[in-house]
C-alpha cells in the first residue's frame, strides 16, 4: 500500500495528552489531516500506564477516570477502541481511633454506616447529595460551551451572556443561594452547615482540595466539591471508575479512535517551538530542527508553555502575557506507587473485603487536612499528608503478577516550591512520610512493599511537562475558571495568533480526564475554517 504523505498538514497538535488526542480525533473525524506530536515514547501525558517494575503496571500519575465527557465517549466510540471503566463503588476512610467511615454502592448501606457516626448526618447526607445533584445539573451546561467574555460587546459574547443569565435566573431561589455559597465558602464551612460528624466532613472536604494549593478552610474550595458531583448526574455513565489497563488505556483508546479517523500520532517527537509568520502560526519546529508546516497548530500544553515558551511572548498582547505570567500553577501534590506482595491489612477493617475495591483515603479530620496544608504553606511537604488511594489490581488483576498488587497513592501536600527544592533525599523522605502515615492504619504495609516509586511535583513537571507539576495544567481555583481560564478574552481556545489554538487542561473547563477542552478547541478550529 502506498500512502500519500501530505507535505503540509491541516492541523498539528502539540502534545499527545488526552486533550490533545481528543482534539486530534475530532479534527480527523471532520476530515482534517492531523498530526499529533508527543515528546515521550508513549501517548497520554499525565494519563499513562507504565510497567515501572517488571510485572507491575502503574497508573503513574492520574489514577481514576472521573469526568470523561459522555459525548466524547459516544462521538469517538471509545469502547470500540478498548475503553472499559470499572466502577469504583465504595469509599473507605480508616480513622485514628480504630474505627472507619465508609460509603457503599447501595444507598441504604451507606445510610446505615453514616448512622453509626451520626444519625442526623445519615439523613442530611441524602438531602445534601440531592442538592449537589441539582447544583451540578445547573452548572453542567457550562462545561459544554466556550465561555463568553463578559467584558466584550461582541454580539456573540452578549448573546451567550444573555443565555447564561437566563439559565441562572431560571434556577430556584434555594438553588441560587446554594450556588452563591458554593462559589464563596470554604468546603469546611459549607460542610459544617450540613454535617456534624468530623470524619464525614473531612472525607467530603478532601475532594475540595485535590490539586489545589488550598486547605479545606480556604474560601473557594466548596466549589471544587461540586465538580465531583458532575459525573454523577450522567447517571448510567457511572463516571467514577478505574479504567482497565489504567488511565493509559484511556489515552490509548482515544489515540486509537484518532488513528481510525486518519490522524497520525507520532511519539518521540518533541516540538521546540511554533513556527510563526507575521501574525499566523504556520507549523512547528521539532527538537531536531526539522520544520513541519500546517494550516493550524493546536497546543495541548499548559498556558505557560503555550504562550511563553512555544511562541515569542513579544508577539502577543502584553495583557495576555502578564495574565499568563500571573496564572497560578504551584503544584501541590505527589504520587507514591507501590508494588505489593500482599494487600494492605487495615486495622479498622481487617482482611480482604469490598472496601479494598473502592477508593481509600486517609483524611480523618478537617484539622488533620488543614495541618497538612500548614506544612505546605511553610514550604514543606506534609508530615502527615492526605492520601487518596486505589488498589488497581483489585479491579484489574492484570496490573500485577497473580496474587500480587499495585497501589496508587495520591498525596497532598507536596509543594512544588519546597524549601531547598526537591532532590533524591527529599523525595525519599517524602515517600517515607507517606508510608509512615499509611502504616499507622495498615501496619503490614512496610513488609508488603516490593518496590516503591515516589513522584514529586518536580518529577511531574520533568516527565509530563506540566508546569510546576500542577495536575490540572493550572490551578483549578475560582479565579482561574470559566472566562478566566487561562485569561479573559482568550478563554475560547483561540489565541491572538491566527491559526494557533489551545486545548490543554489549562483551558476551560479543564481538570481531570475530561477531554472537554480538547473537544471545544477542535470545535473552534472547525468553526473558524482555518484547518
Amino acid at each position: 500500500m502506498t500512502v500519500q504523505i501530505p507535505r503540509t498538514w491541516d492541523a498539528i497538535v502539540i502534545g499527545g495528552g488526552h486533550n490533545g488526542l481528543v482534539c486530534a480525533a475530532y479534527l480527523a473525524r471532520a476530515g482534517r489531516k492531523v498530526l499529533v506530536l508527543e515528546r515521550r515514547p508513549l501517548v497520554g501525558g499525565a494519563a499513562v500506564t507504565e510497567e515501572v517494575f517488571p510485572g507491575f503496571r502503574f497508573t503513574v500519575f492520574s489514577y481514576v477516570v472521573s469526568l470523561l465527557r459522555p459525548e466524547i465517549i459516544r462521538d469517538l466510540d471509545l469502547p470500540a477502541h478498548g475503553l472499559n471503566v470499572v466502577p469504583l463503588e465504595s469509599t473507605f476512610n480508616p480513622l485514628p481511633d480504630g474505627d472507619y467511615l465508609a460509603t457503599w454502592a447501595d444507598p441504604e448501606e451507606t445510610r446505615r454506616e453514616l448512622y453509626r457516626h451520626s444519625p442526623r448526618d445519615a439523613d442530611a447526607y441524602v438531602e445534601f447529595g440531592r442538592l449537589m445533584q441539582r447544583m451540578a445539573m445547573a452548572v453542567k451546561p457550562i462545561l459544554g460551551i466556550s465561555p463568553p467574555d463578559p467584558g466584550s460587546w461582541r454580539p456573540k459574547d452578549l448573546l451567550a451572556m444573555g443565555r447564561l443569565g437566563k439559565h441562572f435566573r431560571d434556577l430556584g431561589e434555594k438553588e441560587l443561594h446554594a450556588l452563591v455559597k458554593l462559589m464563596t465558602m470554604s468546603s469546611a464551612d459549607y460542610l459544617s452547615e450540613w454535617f456534624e460528624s468530623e470524619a464525614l466532613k473531612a472525607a467530603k472536604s478532601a475532594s475540595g482540595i485535590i490539586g489545589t494549593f488550598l486547605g479545606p478552610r480556604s474560601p473557594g474550595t466548596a466549589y471544587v466539591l461540586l465538580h465531583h458531583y458532575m459525573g454523577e448526574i450522567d447517571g448510567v455513565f457511572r463516571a467514577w471508575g478505574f479504567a482497565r489497563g489504567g488511565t493509559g488505556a484511556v489515552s490509548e483508546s482515544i489515540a486509537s479512535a484518532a488513528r481510525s479517523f486518519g490522524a497520525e500520532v507520532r511519539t518521540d517527537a518533541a516540538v521546540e517551538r511554533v513556527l510563526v509568520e507575521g501574525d499566523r502560526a504556520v507549523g512547528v519546529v521539532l527538537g531536531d530542527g526539522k520544520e513541519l508546516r500546517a494550516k493550524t497548530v493546536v497546543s495541548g500544553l499548559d498556558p505557560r508553555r503555550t504562550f511563553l515558551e512555544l511562541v515569542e511572548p513579544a508577539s502577543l498582547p502584553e495583557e495576555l502575557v502578564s495574565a499568563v505570567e500571573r496564572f497560578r500553577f504551584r503544584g501541590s501534590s505527589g504520587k507514591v506507587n507501590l508494588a505489593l506482595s500482599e494487600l494492605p491489612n487495615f486495622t479498622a477493617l481487617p482482611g480482604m473485603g469490598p472496601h479494598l475495591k473502592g477508593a481509600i483515603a486517609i483524611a480523618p479530620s478537617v484539622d488533620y487536612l488543614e495541618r497538612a496544608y500548614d506544612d505546605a504553606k511553610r514550604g514543606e511537604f506534609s508530615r502527615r499528608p492526605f492520601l487518596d488511594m486505589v488498589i488497581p489490581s483489585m479491579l484489574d488483576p492484570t496490573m500485577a503478577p497473580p496474587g500480587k498488587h499495585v497501589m496508587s497513592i495520591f498525596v497532598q501536600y507536596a509543594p512544588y516550591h519546597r524549601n531547598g527544592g526537591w532532590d533524591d533525599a527529599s523525595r525519599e523522605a517524602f515517600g517515607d512520610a507517606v508510608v509512615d502515615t499509611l502504616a499507622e492504619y495498615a501496619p503490614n504495609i512496610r513488609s508488603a512493599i516490593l518496590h516503591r516509586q515516589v513522584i514529586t511535583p518536580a518529577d511531574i513537571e520533568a516527565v509530563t511537562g506540566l508546569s510546576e507539576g500542577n495536575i490540572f495544567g493550572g490551578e483549578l481555583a475560582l479565579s482561574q475558571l470559566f472566562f478566566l481560564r487561562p485569561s479573559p478574552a482568550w478563554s475560547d481556545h483561540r489565541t491572538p495568533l491566527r491559526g494557533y489554538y489551545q486545548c490543554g487542561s489549562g483551558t476551560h473547563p479543564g481538570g481531570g480526564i475530561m477531554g472537554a477542552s480538547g473537544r471545544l478547541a477542535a470545535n473552534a478550529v472547525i468553526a473558524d475554517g482555518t484547518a
Partner: protein
Amino acid sequence: MTSLGTRTTPFHSRTAPLVRGHAWRRWAGYVVPAAYDLIHDLEYAAIRGTAALIDVTPLFKYRIRGAGAAALLDRVVTRDVRRAKTGQVLYTPWCDPDGKVLDDGTVTRLGEDDFRLTSAHPNLRWLHQNAVGIDADIDDESEAVAALSLQGPAAREILGSVADRDVSKLRFFRATQARLEGIPVTLTRTGYTGDLGYEIWVGNDRAEALWDLLVAAGNPHGLLPTGLLAMDVARIEAGLLLIDVDYISARLALIETQKSSPFELNLGWTVAKEKRPFVGQRALEAERNGGSSWAFRGLVVDWDSLEALYAEVGLPPQLPSAAWRTSTPIFDGGRQVGYATSGCWSPLLKKYLALAHLGSVHAAPGTEVEIEVTIEHRRKRALATVTETPFFDPERKRA
C-alpha cells in the same frame, strides 16, 4: 428431596452464604442467585473484565445414547447433527412441524453414539415422540448433572491452572472430558455471555468440590460469583435469545402470532440446507424461499434523542441498571412496525441497546425507527437505529 417449595442446586451450600441481598431468581423450578452483591455492576464487570462464575444448573440436560442417537437428534433439531464431529457442540433451535421454534439449546457430541442436549424447557416427551423406531436411549440428566459457567477474559487461564489437559487447545464450541484437580468434568467452550468462556458439567456429588476449586483458582484473577442479573446484560450485548422473553415456544403459544420461525428469530443460519428430513423442514424450506414477514434485530437507541426527551422535563437520562423485558412498541412514521422484547444500558459499550421483532421491511441494518420510552409517566418516542447483532463480539470469544 421434597416436591414442595423451591428447589436448590448442588452449589447452594456455597452460593447461599454469598448472596448478600437475598436476591434469588426462579429458573426452571430452582432458585439461583439473581445477584450476589446489592448492586450487580461489579459482577457484570467480572464477565467483561476478569472472570465470572455462574450457576447454570437449572438448564435441562438430556443424554442420548445408542446407535440411533445421531439420527434422533438430527430428526429433531434444525442443524445437521450427523456432520458434527465428536467433541463438537452445536447451538440449535428445534421446531414443530409448522417450522415454529419450540426451544433452543446445545447439542454436544460426546462420542460417536453419545450426545448431550441442553434446553431451556423440558423436552423429554418431545424426544420420545420423535424416537419412534429409532434405537436410542434418552436419559434425563437434569437432576443428576450440575453446571457452572465460567465466563470472562481470564476464564482460560483459570481453567488451565487446574485442568489435567491443555484447555487452550479447546476451540470455540468444542467439548472435552477433563479432570480438574481430579474432579471428572465435561468442558464445553460455550456460554451465554458472548465472551471467552466455558461451561463445566459435573456430577452432583462433586459439585461443591468443583465450586471450591474454581473459586480458589480464580481468586488471583479477579473471579467473582455472578448472578443472573449481570448475565442478562451480557447476553443482550451478545444478542443471545431468551425463551419466554424474546420468543414464545410454539408449544405454549395460545395464538398463531405468538409463534416464531428460526428465520424470524435471526436464526436462519441454523437451518441446515440439504439435510435429511427433520421436524418442520418442509415449512422452513418454503419460508427460506418465500421470505419471512418478521425479523429479529438489534436496536441502538440514539442518545441525543433520548437526552432531548429527558431535557424537556429537566432531567438527565435515567435508565435502569438491570435489563428490562417488557414488550415495547417500535414505530416508523407513526405506525407500529414491531416490538422490543429485551433491552439494557450497556455499561461497556456505553449504549442503550434493545432486541426487537421488526416487520421485515423495517429490518435492514441502518434503518431509523422509534422506540417508546416512558419519561416521567409520559410515553415518548426516541430514535433508534436497527443494527446487526451481536452488539459486542470480542476476538477472544473465538480466539
